[in-house]
């Protein structure tokens, strides 16, 4: 598949993810918005790379990695009752930083 094809696929996945976050009322949650923003920034960087001449192969591999990252995010959100990894990290971080647990 070309870089343009991968970009289209990334856009489809992100659109699905955005829809699910909105439907679940998670679009305002800071951790989800942060993670979505991180993916979106990479998607926009990829689109800018796709638009540049002479770096199609670089754009393709960058997008492949982005697609893998989006797929890693999807299980956090999509399955009913699935563990919320980002939230778990927040709880652990709070234990060390706020509650004083020894590292």
């Amino acid at each position, binding site marked *: 598949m070309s870089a343009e094809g991968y970009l289209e696929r990334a856009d489809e996945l992100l659109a699905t993810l*955005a829809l699910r*976050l*909105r439907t679940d009322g998670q*679009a*305002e949650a*800071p951790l*989800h*918005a*942060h*993670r*979505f*923003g*991180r*993916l*979106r*920034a*990479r998607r*926009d*960087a*990829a*689109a*800018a*790379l796709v*638009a*540049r001449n002479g*770096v199609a192969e*670089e*754009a393709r*591999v*960058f997008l492949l990695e982005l697609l893998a990252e989006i797929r890693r995010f999807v299980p956090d959100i999509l399955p009913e009752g699935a563990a919320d990894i980002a939230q778990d990290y927040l709880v652990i971080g709070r234990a060390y930083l706020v509650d004083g647990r020894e590292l």
Partner: protein
Amino acid sequence: MTSSSDASLSAHVIRSDAEAIQIAHELASRLAEGAIARDQERRLPAAELDLLSASGLMAITVPRAHGGADVAIETVIDVFRIISTADPAIGQLPQNHFVFTEAIRQDGTDEQRGFFFAQILSGARLGNAQAERNTGSALDMRTRLLPHADGSFRLDGTKYYCTGALLAHWIPVAAIDEQGRGVLAYVRRDAAGVEVLPDWNPMGQRVTFSGTAHFRDVIVPPLQVVPHWRIFERPNIFHSYAALLHAAIDVGIARSALQDARALIRARSRPRLGAPVATTLDDPLLLARFGELAVRLHALEAYLAAAARLHDQADRDSSERRIAEAAAAAAGVKALAEDVAIEISSEIFALIGTASTDERLDLHRHWRNARTHTVHDANQWRYQALGSFALTGKPIGKPVRRLASSDSNTKP
């Protein structure tokens, strides 16, 4: 310190975007030569900033009606990226100059524009005195600009992180006026009551000298007061433009680090201990990792340029939608620039090997510079802001400074 009224000020006047880029490349080659020595010796870059002023680059955003080139934002951002690749401290020093030149363009009177743009065209530099320590929030201020019976104002306060102030001709000082509004007082660097200290002692961006400035009963004529609060009352790209300038500095650091790594790796023949290959360049793991970093750098550079073009479009049509999209792009680029600059400036050591730790190479300056500059503000919240905009359409907010309450916490 010469004042901006000093007749010795003179600068070339750049006429086009292409000329600005060409001069930036020429200046960058000269600045790159001394970057390591400046970093290692913490040398005040007075001569380098004078070169920058004389080159005309400091005036490239002055409107054409006032004799400037009024170059595209994309050009300004590229100039910052180019200079920062040579030396990111020299790249950061004029960041506030461009921001506060824009503040005059946005909210200055015709008289203020005429006066200050003429100064800038002749080579005058604007510094910065915004942030304060020991307040409850980073946006709280105790600095006041209050009216005096003689029709002028008096400025009192202490600032920190005053990048550019030490070697500036003018210092734009953020203050709260009698009505509790945020104003900018552009005070002469050599005015009575102004004291700028060389007390910046960080691990990176060492020669930005972003230390303390005291303002004690400084007389400020009305000509030098810009009603900056107005910028917060309408949609505009002022704040995201400032963020994009910062991002360009980090992109420059990332490129510089990877360029240095490339040169050193290519000069090595012996593979690293434990790598079962004949030569360095036969190491597939090294090649793959370098390729990964190169792709990230290129994606970041493309993203920076695309975000700058969005700012040019938003500057032209000023629609709320365009402005919000530009701000979201600036947030994404700045956050990604931190990730990529930190990753590259750290990973190059593992690619090169122990030889990379030789102090004479000063390769760690890239990481120190990236780490110091990227903690300027909470970039992870920029990803959150971009995500929130993408998911809900909520535009990114502006950092409004306000008067610190008398009972506010005192935090450094």
